[in-house]
């Protein structure tokens, strides 16, 4: 596929929303790739974190919203701690999740999780997963 870039495509309302929710300027990114290099789960992602930043600069927000990447991200903050430009990449990731979740979208249905033994499962796991993945 190819991107038809123009002024309107780059500055759309969704990308404004991302900047507002995350309070990060995606245009600070100069694509050094450090976020992806250090990401512990990048091999499970369909779009790498630096590509997320690039797409966000293009305004191609919907593609990111539909990706698996934003749900694979476990907010370990490695990218944020190492970004040479001080971008909190994990906040950008959270913004994409938030846009989905605020539309009552849920990545996981509580009754369809991979829990085998509820007694053995700690509350910290249940609560954090539900907070991150249910709208």
């Amino acid at each position, binding site marked *: 596929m190819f991107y038809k870039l123009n002024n309107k495509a780059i500055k759309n309302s969704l990308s404004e929303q991302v900047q507002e*929710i995350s309070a990060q300027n995606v245009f600070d990114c100069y694509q050094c790739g450090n976020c992806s290099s250090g990401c512990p789960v990048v091999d499970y992602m369909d779009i790498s974190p630096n590509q997320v930043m690039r797409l966000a600069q293009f305004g191609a927000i919907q593609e990111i919203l539909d990706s698996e990447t934003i749900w694979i991200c*476990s907010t370990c903050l*490695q990218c944020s701690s190492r970004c040479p430009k001080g971008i909190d990449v994990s906040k950008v990731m959270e913004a994409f999740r*938030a846009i989905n979740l605020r539309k009552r979208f849920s990545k996981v249905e509580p009754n369809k999780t991979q829990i085998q033994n509820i007694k053995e499962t*700690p509350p*910290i796991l249940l609560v*954090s997963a539900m907070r991150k993945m249910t709208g």
Partner: protein
Amino acid sequence: MNLPYYPGCTLKANASHFEDSAIKAMEILGHQLVEMKDWVCCGTVFSQTDDDLMLHLASIRNLLRAKEQGFDELVTLCSMCYNTLNRSKAFIDSDPDNLKKVTDFMYRENIEYDQDIQVYHLFNILKDRIKYETIEKLVHNPLKSLRLGAYYGCLLVRPKEFAIDDFEEPTIIEDFLRILGAEAIDYPYKLECCGAYQTLTQKDVSVKRCYEILNSAKKANCDAIVTSCPLCAYNLDFLQKEIEKEYVGFVNIPVFYFTELLALALGHTWEASWSELHAVDPLPLLKDKQLI
């Protein structure tokens, strides 16, 4: 001395041995962990969104409750509670607008949130207040010949503004293990994410992460892993069943909470109830090293 203490959800459930060992160890050190009343869940994960204050209210209400009970500090054991309470507090405190909105919203509370309360991790207390040198003198059962890998995970060291030590090369846990008489082993994956809540949704991610972490520690010849986060502890310990299936030849390795080892080193007897909450039984190792 009394230390106001915030337990968090998991320390009252699957990680009750974490709490139990902490209380007992602190008693030996002459400090009482006093559980605050009426606490609620901190929300576990700190909300990274900049525009939704509601997600920080639980944390702020806990701080308000503590203040109400006359405390000006709170000690946590769980890395996640430490991180979430601290970051929520900083997020609200640093912005007058946020502060006003939150204060206005909580108008029916008995007192007003005045920001004047500090959140510490037990490691802060052990290192800076009680001091490692003092603890060292009280070690009666040194963990000799135990080769331990400190596992920091994410939330003790990130974001860097809230790190309890250097965020790339911390040594606070290793230093702690050394004063207990153990050998602290450095291994490259000590700051890598365990997969966290992916265990619920994408278990294969967590299984692989935990395998890599444990394998890295084992390559460095660790006998066991030491952590302070109930989620990390759960993943690293309980996912070993799955790791065994996925990675042929993987041999189990016990996962401890740092307080269990502290209590043991200070001369407290190892309790059977603690063992029950471990997936990989630590008793053979402890017996082998003649620590119990």
